[in-house]
């Protein structure tokens, strides 16, 4: 069947040589090489579910009077966007299922990207010649966060309205251009009547198109450069050991794709997410508590909650306090992420090409830095839900914030030191191990040769 199809395509496109080699392309068998596919599957799912949602969502802040099955909102004046979300959720076939699966997918998408990047980072897969794909990957993480935030902000509920208010305050705090920038982006002093109409095309067109382009570039580069692989008995710098794309890897990949869709639909069908009908429509004087953003933006929220209150007045100009945790810190963190491959090459003076991965313990410096960075992100994320933790731990939010400030400085460093010593310990154990097993084959002449 495949042979016939390849033949048919070859007659028309002359594609047989390419397809023949493509179908035989080797994919490494280690499970962690599928983390990126999990992220890609989420992208496909989020496109499909988002398209369905776009049929019913009205990106408008015009005021309408709602009449419908949510009794406590009957007769209420609200934005057309919020009303269409209520209709989508309660009066549209499969609307709530798809909306919830879409939102779950956004959370899983970002989590899969972070997990995939961690695998790439800790095994040194970003080293020469793959720095470009690392840069593209960091950019895609930024885009996933941005697309998540714009989507979360579309319904115009009390929770996301408060989130947009924070984003507006952060924009306003930027020195010199802050006010102009905030007015330009939001179309006036927040809340404005144009915001949803602006967020919508950014959320459903601009960022997804960028993402699709970058995914294409990411995969083309991957295809061209071929996979990295863990060192092993048969793995060398100049080969790729694994399963062929057809049929083994295609079956694996297809199974994972379908299973991902299954998990997302199960989550969407069984677990309630972002119940905007409970939060109510946004008015500037209302809010809900406890409140946090989605997890991928939670570290930014945490930075704002425990960040320094430095409002600097220079003459008649003010640099607002949100500038440091809300703009400087994320810029610094992402700059470090972008720069790491080059920083590491500079520090280790390693300019060689690497097709073989390192086991994490082989590079204590990289591992400790990675653990430190994840520790910073995790600590900030934790600080972003201080309201929930204070309730659970029966302490005041203010004391918890002070704990978090100290923890942010101390804990990631301790974790990095621990990671460093674990790596060194593993290194010394491996140094005493027997050398790698070599397979010897006896040939027809009775002699031996390496397999």
């Amino acid at each position, binding site marked *: 069947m495949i042979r016939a199809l390849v033949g048919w395509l070859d007659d028309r496109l002359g594609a047989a040589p390419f397809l023949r080699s493509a179908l035989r392309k080797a994919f490494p*068998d*280690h*499970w*962690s090489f599928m*983390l990126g596919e*999990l992220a890609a599957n989420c992208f496909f799912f989020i496109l499909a579910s988002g398209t369905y949602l776009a049929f019913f969502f009205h990106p408008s802040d015009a005021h309408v009077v709602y009449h419908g099955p949510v*009794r*406590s909102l*009957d007769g*209420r004046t609200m934005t057309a966007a919020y009303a269409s979300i209520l209709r989508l959720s309660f009066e549209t076939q499969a609307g709530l299922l798809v909306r*919830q699966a879409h939102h*779950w997918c956004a*959370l899983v998408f970002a*989590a*899969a990207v972070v*997990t995939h990047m961690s695998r790439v980072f800790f095994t040194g897969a970003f080293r020469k010649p793959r720095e470009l794909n690392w840069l593209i990957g960091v950019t895609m993480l930024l885009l996933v966060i941005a697309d998540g935030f714009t989507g979360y902000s579309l319904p115009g509920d*009390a*929770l996301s309205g408060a989130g947009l208010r924070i984003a507006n305050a952060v924009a306003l705090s930027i020195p010199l251009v802050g006010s102009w920038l905030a007015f330009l982006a939001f179309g006036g002093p927040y809340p404005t009547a144009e915001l949803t109409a602006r967020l919508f095309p950014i959320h459903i067109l601009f960022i997804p198109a960028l993402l699709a382009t970058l995914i294409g570039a990411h995969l083309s580069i991957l295809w061209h450069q071929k996979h990295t692989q863990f060192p092993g008995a048969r793995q060398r710098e100049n080969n790729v050991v*694994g*399963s*062929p794309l057809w049929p*083994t890897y295609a079956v*694996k990949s297809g*199974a*994972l794709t379908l*299973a*991902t869709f299954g*998990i*997302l639909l*199960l*989550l969407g069908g*069984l*677990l*309630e*997410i*972002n*119940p905007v009908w*409970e*939060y*109510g429509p946004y*008015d500037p004087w209302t*809010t*809900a*508590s*406890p*409140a*946090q*953003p*989605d*997890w991928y933006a939670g570290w930014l929220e945490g930075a704002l909650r425990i960040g320094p209150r430095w409002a600097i007045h220079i003459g008649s100009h003010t640099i607002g306090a949100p500038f440091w945790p809300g703009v400087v810190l994320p810029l610094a963190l992402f700059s470090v992420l972008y720069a790491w491959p080059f920083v590491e090459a500079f520090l280790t003076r390693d300019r060689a090409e690497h097709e073989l991965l390192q086991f994490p313990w082989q590079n204590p410096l990289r591992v400790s830095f990675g653990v430190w960075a994840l520790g910073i992100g995790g600590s900030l994320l934790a600080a*972003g*839900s201080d*309201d*929930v933790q*204070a*309730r659970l731990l029966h*302490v*005041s*939010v*203010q004391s918890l914030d002070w704990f978090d400030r100290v923890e942010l400085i101390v804990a990631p460093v301790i974790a990095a030191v621990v990671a460093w010593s674990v790596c060194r310990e593993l290194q010394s154990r491996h140094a005493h191990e027997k050398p790698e097993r070599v397979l010897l084959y006896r040939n027809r002449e009775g002699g031996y040769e390496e397999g």
Partner: protein
Amino acid sequence: MIALLAATLSLAVVSSDLDRRGADLYAVNCVTCHGADLGGTANGPSLQGVGADALDFYLSTGRMPLEVPGTEPLPAPPLFGREQISALIAYVLAHGGDANAQIPQVRASDDLARGRVLFEENCQACHGARGDGAVTGFGWIAPPLNPDDPTQVAEAVRIGPGIMPRFGPHEIDGGDLDALVAYVVSLRKPPDAGGFSVGSAGPVGEGLFAWIFGVGGGILLMLLVGETLKRT
């Protein structure tokens, strides 16, 4: 004439009986902090000028008596029954309480939409969209609302316990109060239209589930299909 006399006498007996029981209960449970003359001590505020609504609220929600003086009074299983509460209220009112403040009478209302607007504007910021409660800062807690007792909800609105603002009839009139209480009662059974609620703590719980089921489940599948279906 005799009947009237008997009635008056019995009323006086009942009344003085109630008063004595109130005095006994007060002496055992309240006097340490609120003082013998109800004027308050270093441990607790004065009860002079306090009305039946506040007394009923603090006693029937189990906030009083307080186990550790000086801590935030929080809902607990009430120590006193209805009669004992009435006795204590009678005692306090007879010794300097505010006889004008009445326990609010809540009438049934089906104006959920009006109730919800009032709830969103005045209550939701601290008590949460589901009335589950939340922290308010400096160790204070906005406790979960009790939709099973509409009177308690109405009392809390009127007296403003702890750091909660007090809402008099000028802010929230009788009809509005009925609608507000009706909305709080309707929160008892949140519709959970989207399926099982993940803790109603907001997106933090959702993120946790996304990591566990999304990435965790995904990795489990990778281990299953990735490591089983190897090149033979």
